């Protein structure tokens, strides 16, 4: 179930296939979100924590973008509860960056906590999705991305 989404956003690149970065510390959830996204015709890169995600996005100091320039990320989907850097903190870092701040960030959580949801939306999250993820959640997400 998706709660709260801002207006539709448009893919920045002219690529046909959205490239999604999925961040989750749970192995099973990573596999699941990856499959759900692939089923919605997305290219997927996964990361198991915030720092790794920032590295892949080229947002770590040193600024080395480890992903091919042609594979610019169109969407970041991240778990909220992660050890070390939370999904919220990752969201903030992305929104604070000049390069990546336009990239939509979706937060996933197993806990339906209104203050948590509001906090994320205020920080610029595109959507907040409750776990466990279903095909319908991801389809809704990718439809918005493609329009």
């Amino acid at each position, binding site marked *: 179930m998706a709660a709260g989404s801002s207006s539709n956003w448009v893919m920045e690149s002219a690529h046909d296939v959205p490239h999604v970065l999925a961040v989750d*510390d*749970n*192995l*099973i*959830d990573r*596999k*699941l979100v990856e*499959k*759900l996204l692939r*089923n919605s015709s997305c290219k997927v890169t996964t990361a198991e924590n915030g720092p790794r995600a920032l590295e892949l996005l080229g947002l770590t100091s040193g600024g080395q973008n480890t992903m091919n320039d042609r594979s610019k990320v169109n969407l970041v989907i991240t778990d909220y*509860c992660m*050890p070390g850097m939370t999904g919220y903190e990752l969201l903030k870092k992305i929104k604070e960056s000049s390069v990546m701040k336009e990239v939509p960030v979706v937060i996933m959580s*197993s806990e339906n906590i209104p203050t948590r949801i509001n906090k994320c939306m205020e920080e610029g999250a595109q959507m907040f999705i409750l*776990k*466990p*993820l*279903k*095909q319908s959640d991801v389809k809704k997400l990718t439809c918005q991305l493609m329009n």
Partner: protein
Amino acid sequence: MQNMEVDQMQRQYLDYIKSLFLEGFLDGQFLQLQQLQDENNPDFVVEVVSLFFEDSERLLNDLTFALDQKGIDFKKVDAHVHQLKGSSSSIGAQRVKNCCIAFRNFCEEQNIDECLSCLQQVKQEYCHVKNKLETLIRLEQQIVAAGGSIPTMEFSF
């Protein structure tokens, strides 16, 4: 052309999976997993379930260790339970997930006795669902080996 044997296996499979839902071992999330399986990923369910087994066994060991310490770090215990709750929820292992919910409450209360009791319960529920899933997968494999297709359950509840 389907023979009677495959028919029978399919019926047995449907009865079995229905019972797992009725008895609360599995919930709708498991059906989500099955729906993700396709020609490109014909073993998706088995792969995810296997990951779940590995991950859970590791977590249960970590929990046993953490609760065995003189000075229990409840934050750590809670973190492990949170992981187990997450994975069991994602594959639809409802009873395991529910055990974890109760377990987390006792972690918050720092109630050692109840935590130990929860650990026992979650281990038991894990064993149950592991056996059930292994049986289910075996039934699926038998059907496929006999040339049949795995029937989809009509989920009206």
